[in-house]
């Protein structure tokens, strides 16, 4: 086969040697680029190199199509292929020789065009592809193989004018639809790199499919154009259909990740009830940020459309955990849509509302206690939407706000009042009365440069501003912003974590003595009630104050500070609020309720799932406070 193929290829090259002469002429054209009006003499070299690259690529595309279309199909249609088949050359030798010559001639022409400019001092490079032979050569070779193969297949199909052309058209439509929908499905799941990879694999796989089909066309069809076309069509579309089905199947599998597939998971629990929102990465699905709602009692899960997690808006639950809302950016679109779900119903299903945002995701949002209203902050515009009707119930333009996600909070005080806390140079609260469409505001204490934590009690009559800076933790009057009491500061009493308990008391981890930590219990006005020793600390120790995993049993995590973004397992302990007795939880972790220090505060009700949820490395666990043991809900139990 090889000898016959080489001889045929040499004959083809000889017959089409004018192509190489034309390429040589084209290769000299870039040296005339200084004569082009508007090309500065200083940039003549760049113009020459660019022109050489354009000519080389342009000629390569044109030649690969022309030569591919005529290498076999023209002689087949004009009854000249019999000459080769009357020789002692195998069918594959004829195929390889003719199409190989087309590829070789095209590549030679590209090299001839590009070489003079390269030798004189320029360097030919492909955009974003680098300049080495491998970086340029492989894509060019791939493109030539693809175009030659495509041109040959199309030429055979159109020259035969047989009824198999109908199969080609149907195959083309079906394969394109299947493959494109598969790639789009992955792309719409925001796994853009994976979509590109699948698309690239599809295009690369097209090359062997085309060449195998062409080999079969020549070997089985020989000099019979219609028979060859039939062979080509059946072979090509069989392979491409398998490929397209594989892409479609892969894409369906890709986006159909289940909770069990999560290898890294993070949770956002409902303040009450069994539901939690989960998101994370799934096994074998690079780039996919899978999102679920999980009923931790029944194990039932609802897959949500993979989201654009760069939005910063997690799923928002009502305080009773009976409904939830989230915002979803449509892939390939600037539209952000709002979806709701009634979790109390027998068959909860996400439902799209008529509320949509263009371009910008609201920087902050909150769901009203009844779950019927959504407050959003976009720029300085605060709006309260009716989720059912899709209309705006009330809106206000804030006089002062901050565009930094970590320094703004939006929260419903009750069904009719929305507050925006702005942690700028000072703490500012804006309150919008939905019913009366009136807004008020107050200005509180100074806020440091770092991201502070802001906690509020139900009704927002008391706030805790926990600033890692010199201000420390202060208890504020929620109606005026006035400071009620300094809870702690650097030096005498450093507060590392604090928050409100369900009954309104304040829990605070502090260091009353250097090197030892204590859990301080304070009254609603910040008066000391009790102090329980939590052991020794070092400068890297951090405490994470959770919620009451069981009534009167506070869950606290303790870890060493690590690099930003890491979630160390750390120790986990249950502290009896009446006796101060500490019980270690096996395995450790961090209370999820403590983790939203920069996010919206969603107070966890005592003994609720939210109060018992624990994050350990890249996995989410549920605590059984009676046995002080953890049960894996999602993710992989491995250190991060």
């Amino acid at each position, binding site marked *: 086969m090889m000898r016959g193929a080489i001889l045929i290829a040499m004959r083809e090259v000889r017959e089409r040697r004018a192509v190489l002469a034309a390429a040589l002429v084209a290769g000299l054209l870039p040296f005339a680029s200084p004569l082009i009006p508007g090309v500065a003499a200083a940039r003549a070299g760049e113009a020459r190199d660019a022109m050489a690259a354009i000519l080389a690529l342009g000629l390569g595309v044109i030649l690969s199509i022309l030569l591919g279309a005529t290498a076999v199909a023209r002689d087949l249609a004009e009854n000249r292929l019999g000459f080769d088949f009357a020789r002692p050359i195998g069918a594959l030798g004829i195929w390889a020789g003719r199409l190989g010559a087309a590829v070789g001639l095209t590549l030679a022409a590209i090299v001839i065009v590009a070489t003079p400019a390269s030798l004189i001092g320029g360097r030919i490079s492909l955009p974003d592809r680098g300049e080495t032979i491998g970086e340029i050569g492989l894509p060019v070779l791939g493109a030539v193989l693809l175009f030659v193969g495509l041109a040959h297949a199309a030429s055979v199909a159109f020259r035969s004018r047989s009824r198999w052309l109908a199969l080609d058209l149907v195959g083309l439509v079906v394969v394109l639809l299947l493959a494109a929908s598969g790639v789009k499905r992955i792309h719409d799941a925001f796994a853009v790199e994976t979509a590109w990879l699948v698309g690239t694999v599809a295009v690369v796989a097209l090359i062997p499919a085309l060449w195998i089909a062409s080999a079969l066309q020549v070997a089985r069809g*020989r000099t019979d154009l219609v028979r060859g076309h039939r062979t080509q069509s059946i072979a090509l579309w069989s392979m491409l259909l398998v490929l397209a089905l594989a892409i479609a199947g892969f894409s369906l599998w890709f986006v159909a990740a289940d909770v069990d597939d999560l290898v890294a998971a993070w949770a956002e629990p409902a303040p009450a009830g069994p539901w939690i929102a989960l998101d994370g990465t799934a096994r074998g699905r690079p780039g996919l940020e899978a999102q679920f709602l999980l009923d931790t009692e029944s194990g039932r899960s609802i897959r949500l459309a993979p989201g654009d997690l760069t939005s910063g808006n997690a799923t928002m639950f009502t305080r009773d955990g009976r409904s939830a809302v989230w915002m979803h950016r449509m892939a390939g679109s600037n539209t952000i849509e709002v979806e709701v779900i009634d979790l109390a119903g027998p068959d909860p299903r996400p439902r799209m509302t008529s509320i949509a945002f263009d371009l910008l995701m609201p920087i902050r949002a909150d769901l009203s206690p009844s779950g019927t209203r959504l407050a959003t902050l976009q720029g300085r515009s605060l709006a309260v939407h009716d989720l059912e009707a899709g209309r705006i119930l009330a809106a206000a333009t804030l006089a002062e706000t901050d565009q930094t996600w970590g320094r703004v909070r939006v929260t419903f005080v009750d069904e009719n009042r929305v507050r925006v806390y702005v942690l700028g140079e000072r703490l500012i609260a804006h309150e919008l009365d939905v019913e009366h469409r009136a807004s008020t505001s107050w200005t509180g204490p100074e806020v440091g440069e770092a991201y502070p934590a802001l906690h509020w009690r139900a009704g927002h009559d008391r706030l805790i501003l926990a600033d890692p800076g010199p201000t420390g933790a202060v208890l504020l009057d929620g109606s005026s912003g006035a400071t009620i009491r300094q809870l702690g500061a650097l030096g005498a009493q450093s507060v590392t974590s604090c928050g409100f308990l369900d009954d309104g008391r304040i829990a605070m981890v502090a260091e009353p003595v250097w090197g030892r930590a204590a859990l301080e219990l304070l009254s609603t006005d910040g008066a000391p009630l009790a102090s329980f020793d939590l052991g020794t600390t070092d400068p890297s120790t951090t405490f994470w104050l959770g919620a009451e995993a069981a009534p009167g049993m506070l869950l606290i995590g303790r870890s060493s500070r690590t690099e930003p973004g890491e979630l160390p397992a750390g120790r986990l302990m249950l502290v009896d609020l009446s006796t101060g007795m500490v019980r270690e939880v096996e395995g450790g972790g961090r209370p999820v309720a403590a983790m939203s220090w920069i996010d919206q505060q969603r107070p966890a009700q005592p003994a609720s799932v939210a109060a018992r949820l624990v994050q350990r490395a890249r996995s989410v666990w549920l605590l059984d406070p009676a046995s002080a043991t953890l049960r894996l809900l999602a993710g992989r139990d491995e250190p991060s």
Partner: protein
Amino acid sequence: MIESANAAPVVAIDGLTVRYGRKTAVDDVSLRIPAGAVYALLGRNGAGKSSLVHCLLGLRRPDAGRVTLLGHDAWRERRHAMLHTGVVPEDPDPSPGLTPVELARFCSRLYPTWNTADVAERLRRVGVPAGLRFGSLSKGQKKLVSLALALGPMPKLLVLDDPTLGLDVPGRRTFFEELVGELSDRGTTVLLTTHDLVSAEGVADRVGILVDGRLVVDETMEALKARHAALPALEEIFLAVTGQRSEVA
């Protein structure tokens, strides 16, 4: 010139059937061509000659039956069969952009038995301009170049598929003179399909006639003529056999 019945036939066709959809072009044809024979395969247009020749040359896979050339399966072992087979097709099919010399050079590398001098002499003898591209040659010249290329490897079998189609009388004469010269020199086995019955009568020693895909005659020229003694020429016999003219008339 016909070898003994025990010698392996150069061409052996057994139960060959070729169909195009529902139409049967060649219907259960079996024949043997012994070494050294000049076999004229005759038939009207559409009788199945070309389909048979395509199967013979391994260009088409039979729907049923088997074809062997020089002991090789024509479809599966075409490459081996073609090593000792020369072909002159109905339409000359070499690359139009190459000269006869370039074509001969290409072919010479494919056959170990290629006779360069013989091909050059033959091209010179028939007056084909060596430097002219094949596409620029006249129809007669193309046929003669094709014949020269077919005879170049000193083939054991020569397949001529209506080689004089479209040629004028002098062209046919030149072509057959070359052919007869070849046959007298080497004793090559020939399968000839043609509508030129006069020329065929002059060179063939066996005749096969296809009618609607079926081989209705397969015998020596002598036997055929003896059976149709009332008819003076092969053409008359052909017309009678194919039902275009009554033998009695």
